[in-house]
């Protein structure tokens, strides 16, 4: 299937690919243009260009604090994921390979159960009682851990399989390392790149999470997406600058992940 065509057939395929690209680009390009426009209403093209919306956005204290909240929650959730998933994967692959089947079913749950469904239960279980987490960033860290889990698990698992864990561990043990030492000093450094790729990609989709943030926490610990939604009644240009700034970070992290992925052996 990997043969480039020639003549009119190639032209057709090129056209389709460019059309696909244009469809995907259009909303982004429109928003970008809107964020740079002085004013744009009832005409097809804006009347002038300016950077004032970006200046207004990046000097807005509420935006900066929401952005900080988002970063903290995402980093917290990713740290938790690494701390929980790495030992889990190591133990599953090294000691209990048969658990992998069960894990593959379990990690489908966050994917199959929409956040709006989980939120119904979360609001009741953590609304009051011994663990009143609703309205705090802690509940988001826990939820974002589950959101990132399927992806992180699969990505790191594939990496571990490619490593040939068994031989690596045996080799380290022959040279006198304990299981802990071998896991920490031999296996972990070999996983570094794969874990980084998974982290970058997870970060870029966690930054866009809205359902949990809005239903469980809302304005009590406003994150980027909730802020964006709450600003709906402000200027459309301002909102566009916000959307573009947000997407710039997504772009940056996906690009970094892509680059790292290409360097992977």
């Amino acid at each position: 299937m990997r043969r480039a065509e020639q003549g009119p057939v190639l032209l057709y395929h090129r056209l389709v690919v460019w059309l696909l690209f244009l469809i995907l680009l259009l909303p982004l390009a429109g928003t970008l243009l809107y964020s740079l426009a002085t004013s744009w209403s009832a005409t097809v093209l804006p009347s002038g260009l300016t950077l004032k919306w970006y200046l207004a956005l990046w000097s807005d204290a509420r935006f900066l604090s929401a952005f900080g909240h988002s970063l903290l929650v995402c980093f917290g959730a990713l740290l938790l994921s690494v701390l929980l998933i790495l030992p889990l994967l190591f133990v599953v692959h090294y000691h209990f390979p048969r658990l992998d089947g069960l894990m593959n079913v379990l990690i489908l749950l966050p994917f199959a159960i929409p956040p709006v469904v989980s939120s119904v239960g979360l609001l009741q279980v953590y609304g009051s009682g011994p663990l009143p987490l609703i309205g705090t960033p802690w509940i988001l860290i826990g939820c974002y851990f589950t959101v990132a889990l399927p992806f992180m698990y699969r990505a790191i698992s594939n990496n571990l399989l490619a490593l040939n864990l068994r031989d690596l561990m045996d080799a380290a043990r022959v040279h006198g390392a304990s299981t802990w030492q071998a896991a920490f000093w031999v296996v972990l450094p070999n996983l570094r790149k794969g874990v980084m790729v998974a982290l970058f990609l997870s970060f870029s989709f966690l930054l866009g999470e809205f359902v949990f943030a809005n239903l469980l926490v809302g304005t009590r610990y406003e994150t980027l997406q909730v802020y964006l939604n709450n600003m709906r009644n402000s200027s459309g240009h301002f909102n566009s600058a916000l959307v573009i700034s947000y997407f710039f970070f997504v772009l940056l992290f996906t690009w970094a992940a892509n680059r790292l992925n290409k360097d992977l052996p």
Partner: protein
Amino acid sequence: MTAPARRAPPWSAPRRGRWLAALCLLPFALVFFAFQIAPLLWVAVNSLQTADGWSLANFTRILESRFYRQAISHSLQVSFWSSLFGLLIALLGSYSLHRVDSRLRDFVNAFATMTSNFAGVPLAFAFIILLGFNGALTLLLRQIGWIEDFNLYSKTGLIVIYTYFQIPLGVLLLYPAFDALREDWRESAALLGASTWRYWCHIGLPVLTPALVGTFVILLANALGAYATVYALTTGNFNIVPIRIAALVAGDINLDPWLASALAMLLVGLMALITLVHQWLLRRSYHAAR
């Protein structure tokens, strides 16, 4: 389970090590239970609870209400059409992606991966700017005369915006499937005198069918559970199942977590049903028979 699988493998670690290893699973199990299993259990149990104890009353209330039936119907329609359109565009796109030079292919593939993150609130805002009542594209299309009027906040509008976020996901899922189509099959078919059309009807599409159905199912589930986009677009005024669930637990009036649980279980049940049908189709497909 067979006997050899049960025997401890030769590399089995010492017993104490295994206990320590099992202990390493505990933190994960606790957090996963707390944030994934426990809420789901709460929903499952409480969907069957009313003031008088266990009953199916929540479910019958939903199915007897025209309002909730409308929400379910809207959910199904928007999800079905957006998945179908998304799948068709992704199918045409990923096939052509396979047949252009690698620079263009890698670039558009990478771009599709990035735009798969462009969903929810930012996407709704972008669409309001482009296709809202005074959106640039609405004005342009009206000037050309292609459309009389376009209402982004209607069912049609929702299908358009849902289709948009289905496309990158569809491309990501379908693109690898084309590797199964071998170039020599197409050449053989052409040598034997088959037209392009017959090649696709008898070879291409049948080989791709499992991937197409699988992608369709994932897109359907994706659309059925989507909440952020429609919420941001219509401030929760469009009657669709995820909006109704959220309104029942986080709205200003009429809080009823039990009814919300029942509605949530209906949504989960619907997805489970789709998955089961998918599995059944897979089992009787041509590929499984081989």
